[in-house]
Structure formats: C-alpha cells, structure tokens
C-alpha cells in the first residue's frame, strides 16, 4: 500500500541553524501539507501546497518557514533559523485530487538545542 515517507526520522540541531525536512508524498497525490505536534499538544496545521504554490498557511508559518517541491517526488520544509520552540514532531501529509482524506507520514522529530 502506498505510504508517505519522511526523512530523517530524528534531526538534532543547534538554535539558529537551518534545517530541511524531507517528505515523499504518495505518488498520485496532488495536495501536500505540513503539520507539527509539540510534545503533549495537538496536531497543528502549518501549510498546504498545490500546483507548485502555497494555497494556505497558518499564523505559525512565518518568514522563517518555506516549502518547496524541488522535483516530481520530494516535498520539503525548511526552517531558516531554528528556535527552541520549533522542537516538535513534523508531519507531512498528502491527498489525492478528488478526495478529502489526508494521509500522514511517520514524522520527523526535530530537537533544537
């Protein structure tokens, strides 16, 4: 069964460093998302992406964040200058064009020291 994959599974970085989180969505899906979950808190929407542009973003997704689909398979989230409060699980999700269900990857645990 097709799955969303994410790399790395765990990323440790120093405050102020740039990180790139990578995702490979399900191959025939057209809509892509990033969510995050701070430990013990709810899953929060960050951004949605369709047709090579951002279609929606939350208040969390400020100028420090960017997304890109550099080729036909990868979808990336970049955090330019990480802060301690960026420590969280980051989930990528994708959905097919005609459906509402979003399918999530296993997540990347980001730890900012």
């Amino acid at each position: 069964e097709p799955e969303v994959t994410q790399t790395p599974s765990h990323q440790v970085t120093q405050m102020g460093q740039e990180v790139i989180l990578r995702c490979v969505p399900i191959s025939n899906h057209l809509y892509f998302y990033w969510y995050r979950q701070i430990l013990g808190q709810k899953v929060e929407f960050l951004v949605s992406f369709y047709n090579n542009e951002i279609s929606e973003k939350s208040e969390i997704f400020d100028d420090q964040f960017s997304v890109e689909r550099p080729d036909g398979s990868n979808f990336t989230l970049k955090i330019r200058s990480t802060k301690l409060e960026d420590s969280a699980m980051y989930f990528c999700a994708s959905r097919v064009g005609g459906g509402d269900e979003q399918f999530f990857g296993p997540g990347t645990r980001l730890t900012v020291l």
Partner: protein
Amino acid sequence: EDQVTQSPEALRLQEGESSSLNCSYTVSGLRGLFWYRQDPGKGPEFLFTLYSAGEEKEKERLKATLTKKESFLHITAPKPEDSATYLCAVKTSGSRLTFGEGTQLTVNP
C-alpha cells in the same frame, strides 16, 4: 475560530468492554469531520470521514457517527491492539484540518 474538543482525555477499558469517545465541535461550516488513530511516535492513521448529520461509518470494531454538534467513535469489544490515541479533526474552509487534543485509549487484557 474553529474549535474541536475531545473527551475524555484518557480512557482505560478492559478487553471486551465497549465504550464511546466524544468529539464536539464549534465551526463556521463543517465540510468534513475526520477520525484518525495515532500510535506513540507515529503519524496519524486515517480511519473515517463523515460529512452530514446522521451519517455512520464502520470498520472492524469501530463505528463513527455524526450529529450537528458532535461525533462519537464507538468501540465494540475492544482488544489490546486498539490501544492508541484517537484524534478528531474538522475541515471548514480551505483544506486545513483542525485537530482536537485526542483521547488516549488503553485496553487492558
């Protein structure tokens, strides 16, 4: 602002003891209510989508129902492998999902 509240926060059941989880929502126009299962350290796993009051969906021991203000996830004769956190989410405008805090279910053998 869309709000999703799940109760209880945690629920312990004995194997075979049926129960229900609640998801109440306050939104400005529901375009879908979603149930997900999340195991520790993993991503949410899609279970059901409901769109209109009165709708029901079933999968194995799980049944999801929807009213105009809330949704229930009924678990019939649960097994230890049903232990997980169950998340409710709503879609209103756009395609973002707004999640509740989840209900952590533990089923003891």
